[in-house]
């Protein structure tokens, strides 16, 4: 049916795999078997999966094949193997939160987002490692080994969606669900050189996902390309009355939006945010940003430098809110069973007990002010009448990569590609849609380091990858 090797199958994009399945050139079963084989071969080196659901995955894949053979096509995710951060509740499958507290917890029903993915025909390969309860860090006192970075196992993969970033980068799934409260999609996407989208707060239901901070939690996808992320997001977005933060938004075809050109789109370049107050930036990072801006402009976008409020304000605002809300959520367990938490997680959850109500409310007020100031700054440019950047539902171009159900251009703020171990999460931005794009994948193909094969040969490949990642409608 297909002449693709296992390696070829596991590095296909979602859109391309879907096209092949629609043409009858590929089956979901073959695709799923390829990923399961690769997981069995290499995952022990990075420990991205904590639970593998091979039997359920193969059953779902066979069902997808039968449906497609019968002429039923559920959408772009039909028959596509995905994986879930282990804070998504899954019916009949352990959901541990990477914690001793939940190590034997088996939910009775799926999280709303998992249900949507299954309704879209996606095949669930298993559950992925995470920082404990999407917070803290990977410490040896947790029930599963720490996830390692597939590009270099001596490095960490970022978090908290560590397994999601590592599994996507190592070609152990076609896409993965993560969650983002303070950078937990953007960080592993950056550390593992994948794409990732942190949707606008309220766009994707969080019902059935372990919470960290109610007023900041979001759920979103990581995948190899922004187009793939957009396809997953398209299946997820929508109002859920069971999530009180869920928004009633218009239906947007994110997959199609990602294909539209970005000519004329206004993009804010928040230089002070990625250069920092001292203006220091490594030559590699500076070149990466300059290349991205050049590509944007070559594609017809208008890139304006914008000065947003001091990034440290967003940072501290988020720290106080997360610390307080996380303590409120986990207070009972922190008091009654503190030994069940990992060291770092326990300390962070305990600290919230010392934040006063007035300090928390002040942080909420500051968040509101930063939100208003950011929108205000984003509307203005020298000699401009305040025309907003972007358009509702805009997702034009993998370069922009930013779902824009709102009408401000803060959405388009180009964010810095953080170095490993760096800090400076755009705290308020966490409530805004945000995307992590691998501006430069340094001459490496997905999973290459892990399996020592498929090396991209030339410097041109770097340029090609860079351009491809920033070009609408790219294909692999």
């Amino acid at each position: 049916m297909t002449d693709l090797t296992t390696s070829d199958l596991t590095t296909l994009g979602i859109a391309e795999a879907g096209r092949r399945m629609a043409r009858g050139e590929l089956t979901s079963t073959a695709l799923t078997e390829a990923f399961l084989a690769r997981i069995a071969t290499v995952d022990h080196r990075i420990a991205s999966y904590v639970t593998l659901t091979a039997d359920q995955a193969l059953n779902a894949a066979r069902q997808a094949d039968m449906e497609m053979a019968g002429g039923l096509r559920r959408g772009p995710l039909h028959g596509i193997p995905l994986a879930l951060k282990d804070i998504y509740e899954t019916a009949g499958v352990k959901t541990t939160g990477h914690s001793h507290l939940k190590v034997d917890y088996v939910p009775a029903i799926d999280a709303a987002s998992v249900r949507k993915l299954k309704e879209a025909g996606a095949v669930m390969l298993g559950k992925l490692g995470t920082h404990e309860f999407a917070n803290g860090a990977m410490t040896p006192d947790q029930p599963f080994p720490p996830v390692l970075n597939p590009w270099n196992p001596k490095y960490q993969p970022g978090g908290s969606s560590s397994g999601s970033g590592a599994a996507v980068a190592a070609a152990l799934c076609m896409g993965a669900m993560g969650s983002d409260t303070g950078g937990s999609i953007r960080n592993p996407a950056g550390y593992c050189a994948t794409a990732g989208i942190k949707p606008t707060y309220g766009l994707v239901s969080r019902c059935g996902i372990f919470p960290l901070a109610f007023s900041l939690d979001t759920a979103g996808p990581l995948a190899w390309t922004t187009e793939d992320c957009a396809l997953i997001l398209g299946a997820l977005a929508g109002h859920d009355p069971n999530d009180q933060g869920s928004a009633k938004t218009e239906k947007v075809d994110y997959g199609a939006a990602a294909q539209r050109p970005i000519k004329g789109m206004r993009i804010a370049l928040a230089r002070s945010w990625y250069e920092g107050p001292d203006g220091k930036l490594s030559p590699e990072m500076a070149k990466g940003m300059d290349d991205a801006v050049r590509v944007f402009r070559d594609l017809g976008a208008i890139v304006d430098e914008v000065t947003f409020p001091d990034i440290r304000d967003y940072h501290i605002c988020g720290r106080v809110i997360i610390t307080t809300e996380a303590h409120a959520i986990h207070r009972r367990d922190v008091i009654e069973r503190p030994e069940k938490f990992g060291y770092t997680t326990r300390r962070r959850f305990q600290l919230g007990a010392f934040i006063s109500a007035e300090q928390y409310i002040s942080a909420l007020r500051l968040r509101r002010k930063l939100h208003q100031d950011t929108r205000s700054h984003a509307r203005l440019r020298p000699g401009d009448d305040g025309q907003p950047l972007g358009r509702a539902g805009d997702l034009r171009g993998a370069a922009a990569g930013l779902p824009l159900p709102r009408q401000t251009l803060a959405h388009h703020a180009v964010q810095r590609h953080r170095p490993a171990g760096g800090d400076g999460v755009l705290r308020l931005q966490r409530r805004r849609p945000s995307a992590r794009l691998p501006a430069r994948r340094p001459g490496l193909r997905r999973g290459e380091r892990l399996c020592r094969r498929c090396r991209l040969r030339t410097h041109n490949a770097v340029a090609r990858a860079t351009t491809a990642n920033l070009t609408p409608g790219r294909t692999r």
Partner: protein
Amino acid sequence: MTSSGKAPTLDEFRARATLTGLTLTEEDIGHLHKGYVGLLGLMERIPQRWAWAAEPPLVFRADE
């Protein structure tokens, strides 16, 4: 900085810790005190005075 932003001494922090309901060792208290004082230093960036209308948003969503 917020009005409760004066950094507590370790003894003051220990007294406060007894009111939290947490079971803490002396080592825990030392670490948490260090973390709290650091957080207070960062919180100096949060304005102390707010207009009466600067209410915190309870809901702030994609359809706002």
